[in-house]
C-alpha cells in the first residue's frame, strides 16, 4: 500500500484527474446525466488541486516531471482556471437539453490533464504528450456545437494549423534529440549555441510555443478560432494552453540568470509586434470574441515583457499578470457565455448584442466592464496592478523598447475596450436583436466571484501577491 502511495504521489494530480475521466466515461456509458458528469469532473479538478501540495511535498520525483514551486504553482493556476471554466461551461450547456452535452466537461477535463502535464513536464515526452492531449481535446471543445458551421470551420482551422505547429515543434525537438541525444529541456538549456543544429531547433521550438501562446507572427489563427468556438471553449483556448506553455518557458528562462541574446531579440520582436498588432487589429472590430482574441495577442505581448524582465521582480510580475489574465479573460468570456444560448446559431458576441446591457443587467455589465478595464489596465480593476507590475519589471530591467511599445499599444488598446464599455451604456439597437440567454445561479456565482476578484484584488492586491508568493516560492 505504501508503495502504491509513493508511486502515485509524484503524479497525484494527474492520477486524480485520470481517475475522474475514467469515472465520467463510465458514468456516461451507464446513464447520460449532464449534472453527474459535471460533478465528477468538478470533483476531479478539485481533487487534483488538493493533490498538488501533496505532490509538491513528495520525497520521490517522477522521472519526467518537475517538482519546482514554479511548475506546481502554474499547475494550480491551470486547475483553478479550469474549475471556473467548468462552472461557466456547465451553465452554458445547461439549457441545451436536446443535444448530448455530457462529453463537453469530459473534454475539458482531458484538456486540463494535458495542460497540467505540460506545466509539470521537463522532458520532451510528457511535454509533447500533454500538448497533444490538450490540442485534441480542444478541437473537440471547439467543434462541440456541431450545428454551427463556424464551430466546425474553427475546429478544422485549429486542427490543421496546430497540427502544422506541432509538426514544427516536433521537428525542433527531433533536431535537439539528434544533436544532443537528450530529450530533456535541460539539454536545450545547457547545450544552447554549441551545435549547429541547435539554433534552428531552438527556433522551431519557439515557433511551437509561439503558436500556443499566439504571439505575432503566429497569431493568425486566433480571431477565427475564437470567434467560431463557443464561449466557454474560447475561454479555455485563451487561457489554459497559454498558462501551460508560459509555465514551460518561464521555467526555462528563469533557471538561468541571463537570456541568450538571440532568444531575447526574437522575444522582443515578437513582444513588440504582438502588442501593436493585437491592439491595432482590434480597433474597429465588432465581434467581441475576436476583440478578446486580439486582446489576448496583445496581453501575451505584455507577458513576454515580464518573461524578458528576468529577476525576482519579473518573476512576480509574470505570476501576477498571468493570474490577472486568466481571471479576467474567463470573466469576459464568462459574461458572453452567460448571455448566450448554446443551441442557437451563434453566441451573443456582437458589440451590437450587448448594447444597453448596463440597463438590462447592471451587475453583469458591471463585471464585463471590470474585465475590460482590467484588460486595459485601468483602476480599480486588477489589470491595473498587473500591468503596473509588468511595467515595473520592464523599467527595472531597462527594456526600453518594450516599455515604449507597451505605452503606445496600451493607448491604442484603450480605444476598443472603451468602445465596448460605452456600447453597453447606449440604447440597444432593436434591429438586430439576438436571443439572450437566461442567467443561471452557478454561472452568475462564477462570474460574480470573478468580478469580486478583479475588483477586490484590484483594490487590495497584497493578499493575492502574498498568496502567489507563498505558492510559488514555497
Amino acid at each position, binding site marked *: 500500500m505504501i508503495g502504491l502511495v509513493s508511486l502515485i504521489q509524484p503524479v497525484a494530480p494527474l492520477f486524480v484527474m485520470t481517475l475522474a475521466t475514467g469515472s465520467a466515461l463510465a458514468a456516461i456509458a451507464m446513464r447520460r446525466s449532464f449534472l453527474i458528469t459535471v460533478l465528477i469532473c468538478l470533483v476531479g479538478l478539485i481533487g487534483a488541486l488538493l493533490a498538488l501540495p501533496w505532490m509538491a511535498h513528495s520525497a520521490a520525483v517522477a522521472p519526467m516531471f518537475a517538482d519546482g514551486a514554479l511548475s506546481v504553482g502554474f499547475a494550480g493556476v491551470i486547475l483553478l482556471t479550469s474549475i471556473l471554466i467548468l462552472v461557466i461551461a456547465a451553465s452554458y450547456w445547461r439549457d441545451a437539453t436536446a443535444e448530448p452535452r455530457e462529453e463537453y466537461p469530459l473534454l475539458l477535463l482531458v484538456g486540463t490533464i494535458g495542460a497540467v502535464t505540460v506545466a509539470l513536464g521537463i522532458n520532451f515526452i510528457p511535454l509533447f504528450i500533454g500538448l497533444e492531449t490538450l490540442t485534441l481535446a480542444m478541437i473537440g471543445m471547439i467543434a462541440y456545437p456541431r450545428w454551427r458551421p463556424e464551430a466546425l470551420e474553427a475546429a478544422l482551422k485549429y486542427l490543421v494549423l496546430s497540427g502544422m505547429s506541432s509538426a514544427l515543434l516536433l521537428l525542433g525537438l527531433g533536431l535537439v534529440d539528434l544533436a544532443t541525444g537528450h530529450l530533456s529541456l535541460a539539454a536545450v538549456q545547457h547545450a544552447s549555441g554549441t551545435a549547429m543544429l541547435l539554433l534552428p531547433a531552438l527556433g522551431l521550438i519557439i515557433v511551437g510555443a509561439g503558436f500556443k501562446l499566439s504571439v505575432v507572427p503566429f497569431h493568425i489563427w486566433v480571431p477565427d478560432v475564437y470567434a467560431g468556438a463557443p464561449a466557454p471553449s474560447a475561454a479555455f483556448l485563451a487561457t489554459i494552453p497559454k498558462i501551460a506553455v508560459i509555465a514551460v518557458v518561464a521555467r526555462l528562462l528563469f533557471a538561468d540568470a541571463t537570456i541568450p541574446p538571440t532568444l531575447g531579440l526574437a522575444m522582443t520582436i515578437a513582444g513588440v509586434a504582438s502588442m501593436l498588432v493585437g491592439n491595432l487589429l482590434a480597433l474597429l472590430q465588432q465581434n467581441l470574441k475576436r476583440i478578446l482574441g486580439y486582446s489576448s495577442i496583445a496581453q501575451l505581448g505584455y507577458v513576454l515583457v515580464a518573461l524578458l524582465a528576468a529577476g525576482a521582480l519579473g518573476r512576480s510580475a509574470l505570476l501576477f499578470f498571468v493570474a490577472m489574465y486568466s481571471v479576467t479573460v474567463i470573466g469576459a468570456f464568462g459574461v458572453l457565455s452567460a448571455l448566450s444560448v448554446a443551441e442557437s446559431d451563434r453566441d451573443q458576441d456582437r458589440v451590437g448584442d450587448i448594447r444597453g446591457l448596463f440597463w438590462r443587467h447592471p451587475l453583469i455589465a458591471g463585471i464585463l466592464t471590470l474585465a475590460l478595464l482590467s484588460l486595459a489596465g485601468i483602476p480599480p480593476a486588477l489589470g491595473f496592478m498587473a500591468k503596473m507590475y509588468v511595467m*515595473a519589471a520592464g*523599467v*527595472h530591467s531597462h527594456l526600453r523598447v518594450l516599455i515604449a511599445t507597451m505605452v503606445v499599444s496600451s493607448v491604442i488598446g*484603450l480605444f476598443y475596450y*472603451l468602445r465596448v464599455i460605452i456600447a453597453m451604456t*447606449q440604447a440597444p439597437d432593436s434591429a438586430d436583436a439576438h436571443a439572450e440567454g437566461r442567467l443561471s445561479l452557478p454561472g452568475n456565482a462564477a462570474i460574480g466571484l470573478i468580478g469580486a476578484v478583479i475588483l477586490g484584488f484590484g483594490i487590495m492586491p497584497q493578499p493575492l501577491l502574498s498568496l502567489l508568493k507563498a505558492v510559488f516560492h514555497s
Partner: protein
Amino acid sequence: MILVWIALIPIIGGIVVWPAGRLHPLAPRVISLAILFVDLLLTLKLIEAGGSGAWLASFYAPWVPSLGIGFRFNMDGLSWILVVLTQILGIIAVIVSWSDIKDRVGFYHANLLWSLAGSIGVFIALDLFLFFFFWELMLVPMVFVIAIWGNENRRRAAIKFFLFTQGSGLLMLVAILALVFLHQQQGGILTFNDAALLATQPTGPFGILAMLGFFLAFLVKLPAFPVHSWLPDTHTEAPTAGSVILASIMLKTAGYGLLRFAVPLFLDAAHHIAPLAMWLGVISIFYGAILAYGQADLKKLIAYSSISHMGFVLVGIYAFNAIAWQGVVILMVAHGVSTGALFIAVGAIQKRLHTRDLAQLGGVWTDLPRLSSFGTFFVLASMGLPGLGNFVGEFLILRGTYAVAPLVAVFASIGLIPAALYSLIAIQRAFHGEATVPRRVSDFGARDVSVMMALALGIIVIGVYPQPLLNIGAPALGNLVPAKQVSALPQKGRGG
C-alpha cells in the same frame, strides 16, 4: 483617519445612490448633496483643527507592502484649498443636474460622486502609486458621464478624452517607476512614498526623461499647447455638470500635480525645462485665446479660453517662486469658479434655446436678462477684470514670473489682449444684439440664481480679499520643495 473618510465617503455614497435611483429620482440628488455637504464639513473642520507640523492631517496604512506602496494621505493648505473647491463645485454640479438629468439618475450621481472622489484622492494622496491610482480612477466615471449623458458626438468625445489623459498617464507611470527604482538603486528602500522620493533628485538625462513623463501627463491634463486638443471636443459634448467638474476640478489636478510632483521631485530637470515650459504656457495663452475668438460654439469658446488661462498656470508654476505659486493657486480656484459658472450659463442657454451656436444666439439679454447678466459677469471675471478673483491670480503669476523671466511675463501680459477680444465677442454675439427669432423661454429661477450668486460671491471675495487663501496656501507652498534641495541648486538665470 479623517482623510480616508474624506476620500471614502463619496465612493460609498456612489455605491448607495446608484440603487437609490430606482426608488425615487429625487433620492440620489438629495443623498449626493448630503454626502458632499458632510464631506465638506469634515474638510472644513480640518483647517480649524490646525494639525501638527507641516500637515493639517495625515494618514498612513500599508497597501502593497512588498512594493512599498501605502495608503499615504496627507493634507496641507494646498490640498485643502483644492479639496474644498472640489467639494463645493461638486455640490454645485449636483444642483445644476437637478433638472438637467432625467434618466438613470442613480447611476449618474454615482459617477459624479466617484469622479469627485477620484479628484479628492488625487489632491490628498502622497504616495506616488496611490496618486496615480486616483489619477486614473477619476477618469472612468467621467467617461461614463460624458458617454451616457452627453450631446450628439458624446462617444467620440469620451474616447478622445480617455485616450489623451490615460495615454499620458502611462508615461507618468513609467516615470514613477523609473524614479522609484532609481531611489532603490541609490541605496534607499523600494517605496513610492513622496517624502522619501523627494530626496532622490535625479539629474542629467535620466532626470529630464523621468521628469518629462510627469510633465507630459500634467501638460495633457492641464491642458497646454500642443496637447490640448481633447479639451474642446470633450467640453462640447459633456453635459453641463460634466463640463463643470472637468473644467473646474479635473484641470486643477494637473496644476496640482505639477506643483506637488513634477517640480519638487525633479528640481534640476524642472529648472532645465523651465524656459520651455514657460514659453509653452505663453503659447497656450495665445493659442487658446486666438482659437477661442474663432469659435462659433459658445461652449467651445469657453473651452479654448480655459486653455488660455491654464497657460498662465503653467507659466506661474515654472517661475519657481512663492508669489507666482500663490498666484497659481488663486488662479486655479478662481478659474474653477468662473469657468464652472460659465459652463452652467451655457448649459442653461442650451437647455432653453437648444443651441450653442453663436450665429443663432444673440439678443439673449432681452429674453433672459438674469442669465445674461450673470453670464456677462463671469465672462468679465474670466477675462481677468481687476477686483475679481482671476485677476489676483494672474497678477501674482505675472509678478512672480517677471522677477525671473521678464520677457515671458511681458508676453503673458500681452496675452490679456486677445482674452479681451474673445470675451467681448462672446458677450456681444451671445447676449447682445438682436434675436433672430422670437423666443418664449423662462429666465433663471431661484435655484439657478442662488447657485450663480454663490459663485459670483466667491469670485468677488477671492478678488477683493484673497488673503485667507494666501495664508492657507503659504506654508504648504513653502514646504513643497524641501529647503535642503533649494539651497543645493545652482542659482542660475532662467527663462526669457
